């Protein structure tokens, strides 16, 4: 009854294409931002930062990236783990080679390097389609991880092949290394996540986004309309990899602090991100966040209930986690193939019409 367009008059086209058209939406959005930027940093502790919020934000960025490629441009990729590794190792090399370079630039540059690698591995997408492409992207996954494991230059010849992050600060506030404050760790990820989500929203509603979606929905028609498929696909690969590279850089430098290529960037990470966008919703920015939240929070929640409350043993809880994640994926697909974000939209649609049924 309260949530609807009635009484909201758009007097210009720019107003009509605003992201949050309905007043209540806009206030809700400001409210979430307020919580995220003001309330949480005041309340956060080590556990919430390292175990929940930082991984959530990092995965959300990676999901945004994969969503650009898969959700918007329709190219399924299973190379996310490999591209995250590129981001992480670029970030490490930049941080250690140029100790004076601000960490923010290191992270952004890592994204750009990953974008370059992404373009390289995106070239086959011009000829290979569908599942063949999905499997082909696994080549990048395995090759990149092997490369970082194999070439000692990438890990500065350390004995174990691990890379670990040196301490770096932004405006005098430590953001990496073991001594970092939880709120600082959280804030830097939040800033990147917010900026990138905002950029993603702009890109996907503009002409580039339409190019991607047209390619996804019907590539031949898109080409005849004037979409250069080469450019559309490669730009999707590049920008998606840019996002994923930044996620990888944050994953390494801010979140974990030390990584080993095989363990941290294995094939299961690629699948994890794919699950996030499926569950959250393909081609939806909100979906990327919901999906990441779901995949990060759900296991923690389940573990806390089963192990913490009911005192089941931890292994059982993990088996049940697998079973229920699998079950939920199937249930979602059957009842709502467009993910949690679509459920949210449908709910809003209902609200808009409430209390009238139709």
């Amino acid at each position, binding site marked *: 009854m309260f949530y609807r367009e009635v009484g909201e008059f758009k007097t210009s086209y720019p107003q009509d294409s605003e992201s949050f058209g309905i007043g209540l939406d806009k206030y809700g959005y400001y409210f979430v931002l307020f919580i995220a930027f003001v309330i949480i940093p005041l309340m956060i502790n080590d556990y919430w930062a390292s175990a929940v919020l930082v991984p959530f934000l990092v995965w959300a960025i990676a999901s945004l990236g994969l969503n650009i490629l898969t959700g918007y441009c329709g190219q*399924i990729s299973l190379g996310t783990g490999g591209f995250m590794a590129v981001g992480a190792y670029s970030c490490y090399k930049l941080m250690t080679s140029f100790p004076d370079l601000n960490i923010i630039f290191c992270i952004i540059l890592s994204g750009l390097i990953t974008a370059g690698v992404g373009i390289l591995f995106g070239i*086959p997408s011009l*000829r*290979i*389609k*569908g*599942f*063949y492409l999905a*499997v*082909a992207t*696994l*080549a990048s*996954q*395995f*090759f990149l991880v*092997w490369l970082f494991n*194999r070439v000692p230059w990438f890990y500065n010849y350390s004995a174990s092949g691990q890379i670990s992050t040196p301490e770096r600060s932004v405006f005098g506030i430590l953001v990496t290394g073991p001594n970092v404050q939880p709120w600082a760790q959280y804030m830097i990820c939040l800033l990147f996540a917010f900026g990138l989500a905002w950029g993603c929203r702009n890109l996907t509603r503009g002409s580039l986004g339409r190019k991607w979606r047209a390619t996804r929905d019907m590539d*031949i*028609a898109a080409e*005849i309309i004037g979409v250069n498929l080469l450019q559309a696909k490669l730009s999707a690969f590049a920008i998606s990899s840019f996002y994923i590279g930044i996620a990888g850089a944050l994953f390494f430098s801010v979140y974990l602090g030390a990584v080993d290529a095989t363990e941290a960037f294995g*094939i299961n990470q690629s*699948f994890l991100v*794919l*699950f996030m966008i*499926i569950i959250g919703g393909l081609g939806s920015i909100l979906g990327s966040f919901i999906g990441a939240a779901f995949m990060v929070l759900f296991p923690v929640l389940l573990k806390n209930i089963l192990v913490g409350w009911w005192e*089941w*043993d931890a*292994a*059982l809880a*993990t*088996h*049940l*986690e*697998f*079973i*229920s*994640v*699998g*079950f*939920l*994926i*199937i249930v979602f*697909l*059957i009842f709502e*193939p467009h993910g949690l974000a679509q459920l949210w939209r449908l709910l809003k649609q209902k609200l808009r019409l409430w209390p009238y049924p139709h």
Partner: protein
Amino acid sequence: MQTLLFALEVSLNGFMTGILYALVALGFVLIFKASGVFNYAQGVMVLFAALTLVGLQQGIVPFQHLINNLLGTSIHGFGWNMPTFLALLLTLLTMLLLAWLVEKLILKHLVNQNPVILFMATIGLAYFLEGFGDLMWGADLKKLDIGIPMGISDTVEQTTYDWFGYGFFIDRLDITASIVAALLVIGLTIFSQFSKTGRALRAVADDHQAALSVGISLRRIWVIVWSIAGLVALIAGIFWGSKSGVQFSLSLVALKALPVLMLGGLTSIPGAIVGGLLIGVGEKLFDFMVGPMIGGATENWFAYVVALVFLLFRPQGLFGEKIIERV
């Protein structure tokens, strides 16, 4: 000369390994060909089949962990060992039941959906089965032994020694696997050529709409192909499980089958076999010739890179149907 013999030995072994890859790949192809579903869960089905086989054979009480936890009991095993044959039979029945349940509970509700959605559903299924298998039979390592001979074949070594002055290494398990794979392919071919159901399968693979319009039930077809894929998974599970013991990592054999699929084409059974052989021989030879120069352990990515390069020239794979674009 010596190097050549080594290379030959490596190729032969690659050939044998390729057959094992092809066994896993076959399961994917069967389902894709008949229903257009890319079944990501095939690898987990391999694990699940092997787990069930060992569990039954060793008389493990299903869900003992869960039962003990909920009821505070401590039951562990039935205390008997089931004869291998019976265990095999019961496992096969379990796989058939699984196929039926998959159709009933998942596929039925996703008819006419985008292939990507179906693919994702199978990812969900993979997750589910992974947890379910562990919950049912326990996550510890189990030894699988149904009496398949293993180890170097003396006959081959002796013969080759007589011929070349260098004895070749061939694993007897691999020889058995090749024979079984050959029988399986022959069996499948006979089935699809000469049985009524087989013809229906081919009809569906050729043209869904047309097949439906002449009264072939798509849902029955799905149950059948998933059952056959379950059988193939069981066979692959037996061979891979005998090599490494049965545990979680067994499901990762799927990753070795994917490049085989790309190379052979998703819709072609001969493609899966030839692709498997090419990848098997190729990756072993590459690791043998080039590996030492670039530090080894190339097998994980070599197959994928070869498949990728190959697809650039032939996007539909070796034997896949040619893609014609129309407007």
